[in-house]
């Protein structure tokens, strides 16, 4: 186990270096530099002098060729210094810390809802397999699964924020809080945040809900045909006990691996959805940092997502062997 872990971690480290190298090369070759992409710089009165530009270039390593600058970045990163954001003039780590809350608020709520709904729905559809109600439900879930989340987001916004505006069903269009948030009482604040979350959480959840339902169902279909299920039934156990205790528990293996693979998604947010809802999360930060050529932010975020993706895969592989003793590390 230990040699396996060490080898995986070493390979992972190599992969990380390759990824950051590729991304660094790419962003340094984008036209425009952070020093001229900042709109504030366009203002002639705020136009930095030549000396200023040179000084900033030196500080950010923009005067060096990109491979040297990459080495510079790598050295700082190993010392856990991610640098300062160009456009926001703040340490990148501070920026990320600000954004992580709103993103987690959406992704954790959505994950919880998905699990709470998908498992019972998946079990029900296994029990009712082939019956009319199950066919209708499966068809509906398949439709949901194929429905693009950004289209759903726009439809919901149109419905709840525009068509229902003025009625009790009205929901806020954008952002994670109202503009008069600071004047509210604490109870009102909670209510306000919840109202802002409803539409984004719905859009985050329904697709994965449909996917997980089908996933649970597919795994259950396989398990339910096993001999030990027939044995349990022959023993005279009740259907609920067989379903949950004997069948479902054995479908947990693929479930656990799926959890590992969703790990990066929890923190990365969703660029398009966050942009549509103007949600101050990680996806939006990423989008802005690319548009404004904010190299340190792009690099820090790429590094973070890559680490999470690799860790998620490692976690999935380890858990796989952990819950299924037949699998050996090699």
């Amino acid at each position, binding site marked *: 186990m230990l040699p396996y872990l060490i080898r995986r971690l070493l*390979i992972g480290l*190599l*992969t990380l270096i*390759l*990824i950051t190298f*590729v*991304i660094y090369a*790419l*962003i340094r*070759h*984008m*036209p425009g530099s952070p020093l001229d992409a900042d709109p504030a710089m366009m203002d002639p009165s705020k136009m930095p002098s030549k000396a200023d530009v040179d000084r900033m270039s030196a500080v950010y390593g923009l005067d060096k060729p990109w491979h040297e600058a990459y080495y510079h970045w790598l050295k700082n990163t190993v010392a856990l210094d991610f640098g300062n954001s160009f456009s926001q003039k703040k340490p990148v780590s501070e920026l990320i810390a600000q954004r992580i809350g709103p993103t987690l608020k959406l992704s954790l709520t959505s994950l919880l809802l998905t699990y709470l709904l998908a498992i019972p729905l998946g079990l029900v559809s296994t029990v009712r397999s082939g019956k009319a109600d199950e066919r209708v439900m499966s068809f509906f879930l*398949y*439709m949901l*699964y*194929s*429905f*693009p989340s*950004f*289209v759903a987001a*726009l*439809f919901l*916004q*149109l419905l709840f*924020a*525009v*068509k229902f505006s003025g009625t009790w069903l009205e929901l806020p*269009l954008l952002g994670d809080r109202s503009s008069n948030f600071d004047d509210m009482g604490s109870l009102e604040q909670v209510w306000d945040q919840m109202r802002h979350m409803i539409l984004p959480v719905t859009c985050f959840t329904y697709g994965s809900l449909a996917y997980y339902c089908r996933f649970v169902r597919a795994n259950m279909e396989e398990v339910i045909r096993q001999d030990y299920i027939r044995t349990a039934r022959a023993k005279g156990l009740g259907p609920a006990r067989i379903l949950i205790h004997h069948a479902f528990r054995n479908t947990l293996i693929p479930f656990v691996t799926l959890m590992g693979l969703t790990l*990066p998604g929890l923190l*990365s947010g969703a*660029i*398009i959805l966050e*942009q*549509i809802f103007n949600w101050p999360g990680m996806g939006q930060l*990423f*989008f802005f940092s*690319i548009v404004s050529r904010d190299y340190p932010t*792009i690099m820090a975020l*790429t590094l973070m*997502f*890559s680490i999470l*993706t*690799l860790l998620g895969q490692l976690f999935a592989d380890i858990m796989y062997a952990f819950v299924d003793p037949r699998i050996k590390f090699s």
Partner: protein
Amino acid sequence: MGDDRPDKPAPSIGFWRQAWRRFRRRRLSMLATYFIVFLSLVAIFSPMIAGTKPIVCKYKGSLYFPCMGYFNRSWENPIFQKDRFRRIYPRNLKKKDPDSWAIWPLVYQDPYRPVRDNEWEGGKGNPYGAEGGPSRQNLFGTFKTGFDIFASMIHGTRIALLVGFVSTGIAGLIGITVGAIAGYMGGKTDIVLSRIIEVVMCIPSLVLILALLAVIERPSIWHMMAVLGLTGWTGIARLTRGEFLRLRESEFVAAARSLGAGRARIIFRHILPNALAPVMVPIAFGIAAAILIEAGLSLLGFGAPPPNPSWGTVLNSGKETLQSGYWWQLVFPGIAIFLTVLAYNLIGEGIQEATDPRLADPGH
């Protein structure tokens, strides 16, 4: 097939025939296939469905096909430019040649300009803004500039299908090649190639796409297809690699090798056809994903540049006017994208079940 004698066993039907037979049995997948065929027809005949240029017209004694100009600007006959039609055909044809006749597209609307008053005798111009809801004249309503949405979407079908086919085609080509080489060669080549696959896989795809698009200074729709192809091949490569790893140890490969077949011949003639079935599944899903990403990029402002009609840009204009409640700018492109993605997903699933050897018909 004709000389089946009773003492000879009937020839077994081929794998693809059998798969096709099983695919046809899935009603929804077939329906989805018909839908894509229908969309392809719409794309091919888009200038004849919606346009303001005649399909065929007789003008000053010769026959012309001005509608071809929708496929390519330079295919529009230069005589109409010389005679100063200014892209308004109905009025000018009659005025400049009273004997002329023309066959018109089904819907007289144009994706590149709004129809104005009096293009026909007494014809009304397109409404715009809040007036521009769906009507007899504008089936899907108009943009706030008065452009017709139905025409934009009919012509946008070309881009939607092209984006799917071209980008997935590129992805398939790269993925199958890389996967085949990695799987067949094994050893160090495999280690290096697998690492490359893993690296590309770990980078969030939208980030890679945005970064690549930013490197190109003025991205066109073709650039976008290339970028989508360059970023979307990893899944296909992994699957192909797995199939090749499995198949290269099989007897028929050993037989081919002992007969003296070269490496390329074994890879392309012997293994690839056998590895293709599972690879087609991610290709079908990949087309759906490409269409989704194109529309999503349009929403971020990175879509097809403005004069190009695409479903994504229609949706994006709907997003911008959302607060005015112009629902027709969202609902029609949204449904079109949904149905197309659904169709490709159904086709992908159909292929998956039809080519799964575990589900093969017994007895063959």
